[in-house]
């Protein structure tokens, strides 16, 4: 059959998109991975600390850039212990053992760079 069945050829919704979204600034995110849940709950609330397999726990994602964090009240930030409690040698407030903490990246804007440089993505 060569032809379309005309009755089914409806394209309602095709015209929905109207706005052109400008590329946001590159937003780098990161989160912390802990070997001890107590370390995470020192930085964040218990609800923000999620199990990540075994005894590992991860905290919430936050913007790497402090300027972006300040503009977003919902950004959880790098955690309270960083600022108030934890020092390089342990917790200054005596809040338990200092487990290892690593930071892992996560971000948006990791696709789209080639198109932003002006090459048409279509063919």
């Amino acid at each position, binding site marked *: 059959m060569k032809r379309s069945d005309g009755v089914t050829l409806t394209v309602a919704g095709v015209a929905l998109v109207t706005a052109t*979204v400008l590329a946001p600034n590159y937003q780098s995110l990161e989160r912390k991975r802990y070997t001890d849940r107590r370390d995470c709950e020192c930085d964040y609330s218990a609800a923000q600390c999620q199990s990540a397999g075994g005894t590992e726990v991860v905290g919430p994602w936050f913007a790497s850039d402090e300027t972006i964090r300040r503009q977003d009240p919902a950004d959880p930030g790098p955690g309270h212990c960083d600022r108030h409690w934890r020092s390089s040698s342990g917790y200054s407030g005596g809040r338990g053992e200092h487990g290892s903490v690593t930071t892992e990246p996560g971000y948006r804007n990791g696709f789209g760079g080639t*198109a932003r440089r002006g090459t048409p993505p279509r*063919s």
Partner: protein
Amino acid sequence: MERLVCPPRDHWAARLEAQGFDYHTSDGVPYWSEGVCYRFTTDEIDQLEAATDELHSMCLSMVADTVASGDYHAFSLDADAAALVERSWKRREPALMGRMDLCFDGRSAPKLYEYNADTPTSLLEAAAIQWFWLQDVYPQADQFNSIHEKLIAAWQQRWHGDLRTVHFASFSASREDEANVEYLRTTCALAGHATIELDIQDVGWKGRHFLDLQDQPIDQLFKLYPWEWMLDEPFGRHIASAPTEWIEPAWKLLLSTKALLPALWKRHPGHPNLLAASFDGRLIDGPVVAKPRLGREGAGIQVFPTALDAWAERASTDIVIQQYQPLPSFEGHRPVIGSWVIGNQAAGIGIRESLTDITSNTSRFVPHWF
């Protein structure tokens, strides 16, 4: 095949805009040609359909053999890209669509210029807008166009009846791309799936998953964004470990490059639907065209009197040399046939015509009937 003057519709621009085709004119230059059309015979349409099916079948065989041999040298794929190709092919990830650009004048066999197998556009106008035109202007005639129905069927069959949430991503600074994706999203929704659209730049990565703007995992992603770009960008390194199913699948990397052309010619020398092609052009007589391996919209394509001239000026591993086959001329208008493959079937055509020998992003879309 003939080019005809046909009656322009009253308020045609407003009609197109109401159908979602609001880029029919760009910077004052029309992209949609109202008032002209191409008429084919049934035999000519049958030729186009048969050639498209055969070429696509040849492409699939080439992919199968390449994956079986593991030799990706001709396609310039690194080990990571080759691994993605192999994984997607062995998992039998289905293709959704592609568009072959064919040279056809109604007298000689259709010839393949290239296969836009990864990020084809002009979908909305080919599938829907020219169909509405046919209903308005030649309601008793036929059109080689079952793109819309075949897309819906392809979405319905894709997960064996399971209904999924499918994300659609494009670079939203391009209105044309956005409209193409919005149309495709409509066909997916008509098949019963949930759909979410986002800018390709808004795709997030958090450790194990690609995520949408609501931080929900992206399990199925249609992307109107070339594979080779994704692999080259910062998130490209996460593709192999992510559970996301990509549409088009990664094996399309072997078809969406001009390196496909020498590969097909090597396997099927003299085939009536192919033009001679190679990387150095030494075995091609007469004028040739030098094409960038990954060029788009006619960019970087150049005609040379001989392959030696092409090689002297453009010698590079990133260039493919193809026998020069000029587009037919209809009073100076040069149409290229965009022949759509949906799933694995020829599904219809869209015609873009130019005033030059190289079809570019300034060409015009012309409806057809038979």
